[in-house]
């Protein structure tokens, strides 16, 4: 029947192979459009998930900071209650090197503004 179909094409110029190409093009475009829409919605969903994830992380970090500052306050009050009992402070003033060696940072530990946020 191949012979018959080529004869058929010669008789009808605006014919089924043109239509076939049109149909194929439309189908390809339909698929491409569908793919594009899918990609767009997936992108939006991903962004939304990312936003929610960051919210959760931030909330967790804020809770952690709250807990850590509570601990700091605890230590700060321990230090201020320790101050009158501090053997280094109550004994005769030592040479400066001793102070820095025992308390390994730049200020004497009592009532350091650094610990009173």
């Amino acid at each position, binding site marked *: 029947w191949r012979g018959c179909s080529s004869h058929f094409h010669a008789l009808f110029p605006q014919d089924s192979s043109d239509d076939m190409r049109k149909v194929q093009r439309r189908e390809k475009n339909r698929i491409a459009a569908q793919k594009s829409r899918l990609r767009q919605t997936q992108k939006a969903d991903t962004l939304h998930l990312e936003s929610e994830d*960051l919210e959760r992380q931030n909330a967790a970090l804020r809770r952690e900071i709250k807990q850590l500052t509570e601990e*700091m306050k605890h230590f700060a009050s321990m230090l201020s209650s320790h101050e009158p009992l501090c053997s280094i402070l109550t004994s005769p003033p030592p040479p400066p090197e001793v102070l820095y060696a025992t308390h390994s*940072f730049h200020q004497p530990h009592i009532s350091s503004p650094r610990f009173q946020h």
Partner: protein
Amino acid sequence: MPADHRSKSKKTVDKNSNEYRVRRERNNIAVRKSRDKAKQRNVETQQKVLELTTDNERLRKRVEQLTRELETLRGIFRQLPESSLVKAMGSCA
């Protein structure tokens, strides 16, 4: 094969009729509105993500700093003699 929605509706539509044009115009407006809304939501979410990311970074640095300070303090207390510490009130950290 995909369903051909165009030829399956019961009404035959006159594309020149006024009613059709009015309906088309309304739908076109609605579509524009809907798409603009979606775009706007997307822009806002993008902005939010940016903001949250910078906040996040800042909060992490703070946690790091506080942890370091606490470690320093713990070190100090480890070196102090028991006798110079006052008994803590409430639960211990």
